[in-house]
């Protein structure tokens, strides 16, 4: 299978990339290519031009300094190799280690995954749980978008067609903060049938704040606000965790040939409980 013909641009800077995007409305940017190239081979995507971001060094890298900033072109492999992402960022390693396989992790990028907004991608839930924000640059300059406002629908984000996602920022949070991610992976593709990410702030054994998000089950990654409410301000004993896990079920859930709506609903609840327990275990 071959993609249809396209023009190829390989800019060396963000400014050049933004100018190229502005000048080529039918172009697509190429990040890791692990969603885009398969779609082009199947002719599901036939862009007139590709703007390859792979030679823009400014878009790669991770800096940890209170808050964490991750360049959009940072690959899953680079996230896994970064020893600075321990502690409350463990959720990033939890998730990155099980995206696809080694070769997908070598090419696929955090920015590409978020911009693509596949309803079954791992990192959409992770950045929601972490309360991250993304920075986008377009012809009118830069703006930031909160993760909570980013995912609009299946494969649709609040990014405008002429905007480039440049980085993801995870704000600093005070106190004892723990995180975890778990998924039930599709046995053939490895994509999450359901994935749950959680970030909890602990005061002793009490959960003082919770952000929990689901991917795979819904048309876009979504916060599980009912589960968050059931946990917040409570001493996280077995009964409270079970209540939060049960509360997670109240969502509009999609079914498909592999996993029915009912089965996914069950997975949402089981994985929510599991992730909460895993995160809390990391506090001690």
């Amino acid at each position, binding site marked *: *299978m*071959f*993609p*249809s*013909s*396209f*023009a*190829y*641009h*390989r*800019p*060396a*800077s963000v400014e*050049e990339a933004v100018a190229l995007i502005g000048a080529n409305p039918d172009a697509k940017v*190429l990040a890791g*290519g*692990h969603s885009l*190239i*398969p779609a*082009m*081979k*199947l002719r599901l995507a036939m862009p007139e*031009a*590709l703007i*390859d971001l*792979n*030679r823009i060094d400014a878009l790669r890298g991770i800096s940890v300094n209170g808050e964490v900033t991750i360049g959009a072109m940072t690959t899953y*492999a680079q996230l896994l190799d970064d020893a600075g992402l321990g502690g409350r960022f463990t959720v990033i390693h939890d998730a990155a280690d099980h995206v*696809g*396989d*080694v*070769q*997908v992790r*070598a*090419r696929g990028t955090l920015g590409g995954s978020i911009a693509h907004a596949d309803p079954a991608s791992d990192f959409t839930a992770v950045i929601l749980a972490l309360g991250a924000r993304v920075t986008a640059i377009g012809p009118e300059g830069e703006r930031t978008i909160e993760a909570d406002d980013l995912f609009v629908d299946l494969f649709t984000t609040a990014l405008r067609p002429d905007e480039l996602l440049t980085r993801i920022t995870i704000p600093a949070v005070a106190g004892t903060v723990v995180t975890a991610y778990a998924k039930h992976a599709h046995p*053939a*593709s*490895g994509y999450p049938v359901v994935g749950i990410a959680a970030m909890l702030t602990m005061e002793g054994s009490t959960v003082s704040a919770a952000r929990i998000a689901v991917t795979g089950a819904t048309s876009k990654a979504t916060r599980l606000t009912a589960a968050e409410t059931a946990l917040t301000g409570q001493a996280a004993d077995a009964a409270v965790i079970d209540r939060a896990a049960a509360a997670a079920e109240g969502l509009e859930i999609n079914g498909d040939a592999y996993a029915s709506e009912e089965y996914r609903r069950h997975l949402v609840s089981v994985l929510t409980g599991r992730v909460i327990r895993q995160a809390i275990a990391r506090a001690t």
Partner: protein
Amino acid sequence: MSTTITGPTTLRITVSVNGTQRQAEVEPRLLLVHLLRDSFGLTGTHVGCDTSQCGACVVNLDGQTVKSCTVLAVQADGATVTTIEGMARDGKLHPVQEGFWAKHGLQCGFCTPGMILSAAALLEKNPDPSEDEIEHAIEGNFCRCTGYHNIVRSVQHAAELMRRDA
């Protein structure tokens, strides 16, 4: 340096393949696997699924294994590529090839080039992997014949050979 090519026009690229600098005139839509197989005649890299799943097309690109059916040839411009043909040196098999030979890590052999490239990249990073670590590292390589058991043993054997020679 930025580069632009348009439409059916081609771009001249230079790639170091198995230690030799090679040049080709390519269309942007040419996939790396076809550059290797069709332009350079290196047919040890296979096309299996052609949908980024099976790993028959795995090669090493600048130190990392990639599925060459999911990388554009133009993206390898200036890069270093190792294929299965570049694993043996001076008539001597690579220890991972030795391992597959000694422990019957292949039957039809279709998956083997990609499997060997993935295993060699693992051992480069982790000279003494556990069975779980080996399975995790070859998750992107499908084998329809062996049931993976002997592949894991082959990689363990290769690890032993490499540790002995280190």
